[in-house]
């Protein structure tokens, strides 16, 4: 078996993912067929559900927003050679901090609350990531274990706070009271309305723009700055980092702080943007999806955005699919999501060889 073949850039970035996606959908179609439904109709529902209308696009991008934050978090840590499984917990605590700002300052004007809410979310997430980072750097405690443990610890903390402290009196659900108007992230359709454009009412909100900005920041930070350079050196070769005067311990801690801060952005979308209150288990697994998003996006910001949109589309299209095709229930949708991740993320090389051969022939060999 020789090295994975090189494809031309356009094929690598466009054609190969397309082929992989097609393969995943074909297999999913087979499953749908087995359930006695038409695969074509299912595919159409899935695609329409994800992109077929303004509302569909709005929801898809709303989900994608969350995945961009957590995907970036995982990617940044990955470049420093750290596997951060704790984005879920970091998002949880970051969201708590964002939520507290919104609860406390809900009467302030939004533009005054926003920077504080962003800072609080980032600080909360970073703080929750700092401890595992510090333990790894100073005590050698394995970051995979500590971040898993910190996910559980965050869940315990949040359940305690929501049930005993933050819960709105007189209600069943472990949720805080609703944020004041200043704590509500403007939905995109309202923003667009201000400039005279109409867009369907969806939870898609300003956080999407913030997520894109975060991706841009990560791109510049990792690839264009000396700090990002140091981070990547330490991630690739710790001995070389030591030789170059880059302290692996400082990079570990720094990268985890940044990673946690990015995960902390989830609260902006979910709490300020969609729910307008702090509620139990609001990350809903987005932290784990972030792992797949980051790896599928090759840990590159653009890749993360693309993968996040794909996952958002699967979440939104899948829910439409199960809505309109009751036989394809939510578990089936999960299966389809798994297949897409498998083909696009893990079996990507399967088609690379044949594709390279095909293209090579047409372009007359190397």
């Amino acid at each position, binding site marked *: 078996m020789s090295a994975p073949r090189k494809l031309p850039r356009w094929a690598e970035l466009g054609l190969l993912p397309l082929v992989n996606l097609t393969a995943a959908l074909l297999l999913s179609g087979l499953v749908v067929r087995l359930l006695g439904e038409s695969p074509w109709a299912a595919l159409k529902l899935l695609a329409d559900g994800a992109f077929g209308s303004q509302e569909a696009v709005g929801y898809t991008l709303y989900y994608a927003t969350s995945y961009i934050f957590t995907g970036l978090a995982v990617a940044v840590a990955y470049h420093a050679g750290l596997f951060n499984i704790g984005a879920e917990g970091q998002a949880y605590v970051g969201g708590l901090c964002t939520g507290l700002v919104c609860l406390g300052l809900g009467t302030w004007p939004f533009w005054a609350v926003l920077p504080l809410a962003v800072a609080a979310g980032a600080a909360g997430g970073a703080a929750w990531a700092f401890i595992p980072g510090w333990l790894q750097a100073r005590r050698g405690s394995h970051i995979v274990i500590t971040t898993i443990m910190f996910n559980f610890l965050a869940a315990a903390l949040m359940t305690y706070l929501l049930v005993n402290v933050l819960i709105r009196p007189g209600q069943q659900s472990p949720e805080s009271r609703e944020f004041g108007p200043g704590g509500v992230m403007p939905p995109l359709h309202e923003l667009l309305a201000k400039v005279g454009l109409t867009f369907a009412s969806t939870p898609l909100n300003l956080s999407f723009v913030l997520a894109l900005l975060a991706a841009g920041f990560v791109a510049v930070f990792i690839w*264009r*700055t*000396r700090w990002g*350079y140091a981070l990547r050196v330490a991630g*690739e070769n710790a001995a070389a980092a030591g*030789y170059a*005067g880059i302290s692996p311990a400082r990079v570990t801690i720094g990268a985890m702080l940044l990673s946690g801060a990015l995960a902390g952005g989830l609260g902006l979308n979910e709490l300020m943007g969609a729910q307008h209150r702090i509620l139990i288990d609001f990350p809903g697994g987005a932290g784990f999806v972030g792992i797949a998003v980051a790896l599928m996006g090759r840990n590159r910001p653009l890749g993360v955005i693309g993968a996040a949109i794909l996952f958002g589309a699967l979440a939104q299209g899948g829910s439409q699919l199960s809505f309109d095709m009751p036989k394809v229930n939510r578990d089936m949708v999960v299966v389809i999501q798994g297949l897409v991740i498998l083909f696009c993320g893990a079996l990507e090389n399967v088609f690379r060889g044949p594709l390279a051969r095909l293209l090579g022939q047409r372009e007359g060999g*190397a």
Partner: protein
Amino acid sequence: MRAVRLNPCPSVVEDLHSIYPALELRGIEKRFGAVHANRGVSMSVAAGSIHGLIGENGAGKSTLMNIVYGFHQPDAGEILVNGKRVTLPAPHAAIAAGIGMVHQHFMLVENFSVLENVVLGAEGGRRLAGGLAAARAALEKLGRDYGLEVPLDAVVSELPVGLQQRVEILKALYRGAEILILDEPTAVLTPQETTQFFQMLARLREQGKAVILVTHKLREIMSITDRVTVMRQGAVVGEIATKETTMRELAEKMVGRAVLLKVEKGPAQPGEVLLEAKNLVVRNTNNVTRVKDVSFSLRAGEIVGIAGVAGNGQSELLEALAGMTAPSEGEIRFRGRYLVREQLDPKARRRLGLAHVPEDRLRVGVVARFSAQLNAILGYHDRAAYNRGPLLDRAAIVAGCEAKMQEFDVRPPNPALRLGAFSGGNQQKLVLAREIDADPAVLLVGQPTRGVDIGAIEFIHRRLVALRDAGKAVLLVSVELDEILGLADRILVMNGGEIVGEVAGAAATEEKLGLMMAGVRGEGSA
């Protein structure tokens, strides 16, 4: 299960010798993408002979040998062993055909014992205990027969490289290799070890084995090989009986021009003291003292060589001076700054003008998966020259790398290429270029020409002398006595972590140094 062949029947071996070469290559072709690494290479190696293979860095020697070992597949061409065509889809096929190889970069499991490394793949049964016992006996015999004694239960990572290499050779012999490929084996050996090593090769030859020796050292070629094949840019440019050629001729064939085999330099004009070490003590992570109470000074305008058998504390001394490890006692003074007390890290030291070429470039000096241009700023990445405001200045980085590649003849001169895709020697050149180009006041350099071809050696030596002549100081750690003798103005000899003596460069001889390296205290010692 492949049989472990320790004593092939001599008479059969004799018979085969008379008719066919042990190994014959015909028209081997290999491309890596755009790189044409082997172009129609043919060569023939007789049993009972030592065959040299030389060529510049990147000439394709390792690639060719890897093909013979079944590790890479040729695009075209055929391989014959004892006159029979063989296909070698994987190393196990090569091993079965009696081919053994010691790679340029060792293929050892570092946290395994010597014994475990040797038996890996030739365990002789499902259960280990029996196989290990048999192997122990066999290895002790091999050790005695060939002078290849190694502590069998030692963990490999704790052995000096010279011994690690013995383990590699034992691995091949234990598998019954009749054709033994050695890819730059002496790069890591001391002169004494090299002598021993050659005695072992001679014994192998007597036993009727075919040995292929890949090396850059022409002296070795001349002293031990029977025939020699020269490669340039992937192709064979000559195959000659060693007796019928000279070093100069080989060098010219290899490089394609005349080369100076000896450095020309004038007398040193030492100036002020730039670097001073006082009573340095360095302990490793296991708290073993590796450097004992070392003091010396280094002046502007001189090259000080540190000679010594590998593993006598030179590496640790160099790392401590460079700031990669903190000494447990002592002080380092550099241009009036107290480096230990101020806890200056390598980057800070570089900024003050203390540059460092590490001994183990692949592990320490570069990031193999980064492009050449990114490797060319390692340790200098926060210099103003490479940054514009908060951002790295890409254009400046590329331009800087191109200039370095041009000046140090790094091939291929492509800054965007992944460093791991450069041949060993070219990687080394890039590291040197990076550190010398920063115009340091003091350059610490470990094994500057290890694995570097003869043309490049000449170039590197000239650069080091030029640095000295420009009033800078060079601290040269090398296990090559030739290199030390040729370059150093003063020579310190290390043994057991201590400096056992100092000799003026002009007064030094190989014998004198050799004695001191063995621990006999010389003049000027404490």
